[in-house]
């Protein structure tokens, strides 16, 4: 074998090794941190969640749950306020099968809003701190009230209230959100 042929072979081998390494690098599961495709998917999942921010799914809000669904393979059936409709939407988006709602997280309830019995409220501000969506207004030692339009009915303000003056009620149907009954 001549020298030039040997050199050529070595160069060829080196090139093959290099290409192989590059291919191996490319085919490796991409480290997900900060990858924009996942970010978009999280955003999409988050858009389908009801934004009640009730933490019943075991995550401190809807976006963290969306993050967990994508990054930690958390099941999609853990959101009680969203119920079957949300599960179906998520399954369609992610190409998986819809599961029944995980009852350990809670039951789906009709839409409700919190209401503070203003004559009993002692103005301790604890509920204000608990509300994830800033729907309670009030100041120390003064009566508090719920902005019913902004309340998501997450129930997080109930446990902290020392005088048990917060109730959840179904909101009065307004003309703008009334729906025709579904024909049988």
């Amino acid at each position, binding site marked *: 074998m001549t020298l030039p042929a040997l050199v050529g072979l070595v160069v060829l081998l080196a090139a093959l090794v290099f290409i192989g390494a590059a291919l191996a690098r490319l085919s490796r599961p991409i480290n997900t941190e900060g990858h924009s495709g996942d970010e978009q998917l999280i955003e999409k999942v*988050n858009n389908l*969640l*009801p*934004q*009640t*921010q009730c933490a019943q799914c075991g995550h401190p*809000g*809807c*976006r963290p749950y969306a993050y967990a669904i994508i990054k930690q393979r958390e099941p999609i059936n853990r959101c009680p306020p969203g119920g079957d409709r949300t599960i179906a939407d998520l399954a369609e988006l992610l190409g998986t099968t819809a599961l029944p709602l995980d009852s350990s997280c809670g039951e789906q309830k009709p839409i409700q809003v919190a209401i503070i019995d203003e004559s009993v409220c002692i103005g301790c501000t604890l509920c204000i701190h608990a509300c*994830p*969506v*800033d*729907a309670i207004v009030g100041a120390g030692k003064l009566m508090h009230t719920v902005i019913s339009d*902004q309340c*998501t009915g997450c129930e997080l303000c109930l446990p902290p209230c020392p005088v048990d003056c917060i109730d959840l009620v179904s909101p009065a*149907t*307004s*003309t*703008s*959100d*009334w*729906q*025709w*009954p*579904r*024909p049988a």
Partner: protein
Amino acid sequence: MRVRNAWRKQFSAEKPRAPFSFHGGLKLDTSKRALTRFNSTGIKELPLPAKLVVPLIDYHKNNIEPLVNIQQTVSRGQIIAPGIISPAYGTVSVIEPCEFIHPGGLSVNSVVIDTHANNSENPPVSIPSAKAAQAMINSFAEQPIETLEQAALVGLGGAGFPTLHKIKSANNGIHTLIINAAECEPEIACDEALMLAEPEAIALGIETLVQLTQCQQCIIAIEDSKPLAQQQLSEAINTFDVNAAIMTIPTRYPTGAETTLIEVVTGKRLAYRNANSPTTKSQTTPSEHGIVCINIGTAHALWQMVERNQALDSRVVSLGGSNMRNPCNVRVRFGTPVNFVLSATDNTPDNAHTRIRAGGPLSGFDLHSLNAPITANTNCILAEAAFIETPAQPCIRCGQCADVCPVKLLPQQLHWYAQSEDHDKCAQLNLAACIECGCCDLVCPASIKLTETFRYAKSTARFLSEQNQKADEAEQRFKNREERLKQREADRKAAIEKRKQAVKSQDKKTNTDRIKAALERARTKQKSSKD
């Protein structure tokens, strides 16, 4: 004015065009029951009830705040909330949620007025000479258009859109003014009755509209099933030299619907905005095309404003239906409860099975309560026999529903997707454009409740999009709160760190000095307390 007069001559010489046609629609039996007694009774004037109930909602069904207080005396025509006037002289007794005419039997905040005994009567509209009338109209048209606000004019065709908004929203001027005298739904005859009873007032109202809107042409569209009304109106139009042409259009439901009527009169279908996007596709409004449609009842009301400065506070209502003992047309003051209308005309239902409905036989719905008050939108009250439901059969794909749909929708497909709650697909198939006319229902051989399903799907889609918007807002507030909490935590940490640094940076000597000083202080304190 002289220019206008010259133009007028030219215009009235123009021959009225033949009407165009529209897709679908149905020929219905319009031998109107409510009109059967017109010759003997005319339009009945109802007495004023002791209580009037005025719902505080606007065209979009949003609540509005009252401008009056309880116990306040209000005069007839006084503005009691933005866009709403008091229909009579009286005292506000309460402002509370009251039932109103709504398919779900909902209540809205309403002003209840106890009417006073010495209320002014409704004298018949006086008709001046042609010359005097022109002078009145001219001076009225010279006032700023905002004067119309006091007239509280809204469309009397059934939807109740504020007339002033309609006129003002045509930014590029009004090319064609269409006066809607079609009234195509069986049983409803209030417009026809008005044309027979007071054609002069209508003609003068139309002339006022022509002058107010400065339109280039005005066409009055009347169905060919109303020859007598047409004749009366056309005589009045000649007498007062009104700048309008009458167009006789074929009697075919739903030609009276705004979009269909525009198609019939101008030959144009209103285009869609963003036609290629299923989510933002929407119909352009007539005023964007320089077209305004106004009901003849509204024209009549405008003449009352010109002639005696009277705001719109009553309307003609047709009473009909198979169980209505005395079908007739009555002029009812707004706020009059339905049961008062029925009892005053000797129509109180004599058995519990009679269904009292508001609106026409196709577009209307059953009333939950007879306490609900008549408003500008109530063109018809029907008393019908108990409803016998025909169970729906599976669709046989005959395609008749699509043939009759005046909006060229595909009801069969829409029904499929609406039933499976696929709202995106419904939006793509343009469900929002459905005018809920009920034609598809009428022809369906399988008795499928198409229109009902569409009403349901439309309201649900609206509800869901509202929920979505609320969710977005909640998310924003949640984000803001997270930011705030993070910031607060960071501030707290920074403060602790700062204090730590401060302690560290002080040298030992000063620290021991401070301890000494503190001990000294404590000692003196002890001493002084012992003394």
